[in-house]
């Protein structure tokens, strides 16, 4: 440790005392060990998550063939004649992600560009925290808003679509999109701010307009950060539970690509199934873990991808 100097220069006076500690500092060691354990807790939690997800799987796949689970197109685990094809709820999840990104990419990205390139410092100082408030709105509130306000509104705006029942996966996706706008905006505007001013100066010096500096210099330079923002947002959209649980409904067990109808997602299935009383050790109970594993793998892959893009960006400019 840097605070102790263990050796004294030879040839010093005989009376010279060592600057090192008179006795070993056990307290320091104990503290270092205990805060190390606190940091290790995160690894324990990850291990716990993986074990919790994976342990019931052998039992589950003994009853349900692996191929049938991944490629089957009917998801009806609790029916009298059960079927365990996970594709319908995977498609539901991907539809939520798709509609969420359709909303969040243009809105989030244009907010980010405006705030980092065009807005006056005063405007930015006011608007940025307000956008962060949007991120802090409880997802239950967004879900209620989607179900009671956005869904009837969508039917009024697009009356020619075959709306049916109170649920809609498309509307749920749009609401999730509103939720992830601040994430897209903050991560990509951080990336744009990190683009060195010299790059902009150079382009201005050559007579470029603000528009071409933004589009030709800043956006390409910040591209990997922007990609990271979008991947992170997509991962958030896949994992969002309450909004889809409230606004997308239980859905039908068959494969459906219709955004106007209620379709179940992986998260909504887990949330809905867990609130019903089901006995531990049954196949239906184990579906929670099988679907959870799939969800975990999806988001893990996307997070790793996002981390890689952020790193690449940092390596270039910092």
């Amino acid at each position, binding site marked *: 440790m840097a605070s102790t100097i263990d050796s004294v220069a030879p040839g010093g006076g005989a009376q010279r005392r060592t600057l090192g500690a008179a006795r070993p500092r056990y307290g320091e060691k104990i503290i270092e060990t205990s*805060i190390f354990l606190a940091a290790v807790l995160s690894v324990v939690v990850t291990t716990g*998550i993986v074990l919790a997800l994976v342990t019931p799987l052998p039992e589950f796949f003994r009853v349900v063939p692996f191929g049938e689970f991944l490629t089957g197109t009917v998801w009806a685990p609790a029916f009298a004649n059960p079927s365990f094809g996970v594709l319908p709820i995977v498609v539901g999840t991907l539809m939520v992600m798709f509609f969420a990104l359709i909303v969040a990419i243009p809105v989030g990205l244009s907010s980010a560009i405006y705030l980092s390139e065009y807005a006056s410092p005063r405007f930015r100082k006011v608007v940025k925290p307000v956008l962060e408030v949007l991120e802090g709105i409880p997802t239950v*509130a967004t879900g209620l808003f989607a179900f009671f306000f956005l869904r009837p509104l969508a039917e009024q705006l697009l009356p020619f679509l075959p709306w049916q029942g109170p649920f809609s996966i498309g509307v749920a996706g749009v609401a999730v999109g509103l939720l992830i706008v601040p994430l897209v905006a903050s991560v990509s505007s951080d990336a744009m701010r990190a683009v060195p001013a010299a790059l902009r100066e150079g382009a201005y010096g050559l007579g470029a307009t603000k528009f071409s500096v933004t589009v030709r210099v800043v956006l390409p330079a910040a591209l990997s950060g922007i990609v990271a923002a979008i991947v992170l947002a997509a991962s958030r959209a896949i994992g969002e539970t*309450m909004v889809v649980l409230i606004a997308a409904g239980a859905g039908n067990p068959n494969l459906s690509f219709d955004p106007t109808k209620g379709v179940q997602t992986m998260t909504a299935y887990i949330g809905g199934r867990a609130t019903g009383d089901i006995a531990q050790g049954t196949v239906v109970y184990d579906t929670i873990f099988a679907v959870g594993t799939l969800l975990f793998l999806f988001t893990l892959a996307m*997070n790793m991808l996002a981390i890689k893009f952020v790193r690449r960006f940092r390596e270039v400019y910092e």
Partner: protein
Amino acid sequence: MSDQEYRTERTRLAVAGARATTKSIVGDGARADRVSSFVFPAALLLGVVTALTALVAIIGYSLYRGWPALRWSLLTNVPSTVNPDNAGFGPAIWGTVYVIGGVIALIVPLGVAAALYLEEYANPTKWWNRVIELNIQNLAGVPSIVFGILGLAYIVRGPLSLGFVAAAGSITVALLVLPTVILASREALRSVPPSIREGSMALGATKWQTMRGQVLPAALPGILTGVILAVARAIGEAAPLLLTGAVTFVTFNPNFFDGGYSTLPTMIYSYAGRPQDAFRTLAFAGVIVMLIVLFAINSVAIWLRNRYERTW
């Protein structure tokens, strides 16, 4: 920060001169340039306005729908399945208080300790420290419902076997927001300049004395802001609590380690699922209560940040 703020007077002049020269040679940009310099920012501004409209709409609609049911007795009355006029959020609010109390008790020591290790003690070239770091980044992106599965399998059942009680929900939510606290605390520690540590060590303080006496106090406002924002997130969190038992219908105030519990967001969810309109109004009234609490908490965080923020 935009480029203007970095730019010194000299570079500004140089850029302006170079630009004027180029312009005089190349000519005053095409018409398309002038159009794009107006249309483009307008389109961008539309994006900002859309995001702000969404925020206003969510809050405004909740106020409009929940207003008729808003009354003080909402905070104390017990839930009811038959009489929406006398139903309220009493036990659910107590449930949230218990859960959040547990969350704070867990995330403050664990989050600060982990951040202190990673930022001040860990040698970043060692593989195990890199594993911990990558792991925390990944954990921050794990969906909340997956933490619910962990809570169901290992905290409600399994090794901890607490049962469907407030403590189980509390531990689950604490693990969920822990990465946020660690990342915010590391940020706060990083903003304390190294000269403070070096000065303290040079005067003979040990590493821990330096941390306790100098670094932690200096980083405290930043750490507190991170903790407060994590708590705000924890209050609105419902998904993992669905799996750890918070949707039980309870008409009594909960106990931390015994008996069923409910929380504000999960109670709102179950009221919203009832077919009668009066219960839905009640759900929106609950949303208003939650928004007021979150608004207060966020204001404290912003005040704290402005009041105690130091520039070195």
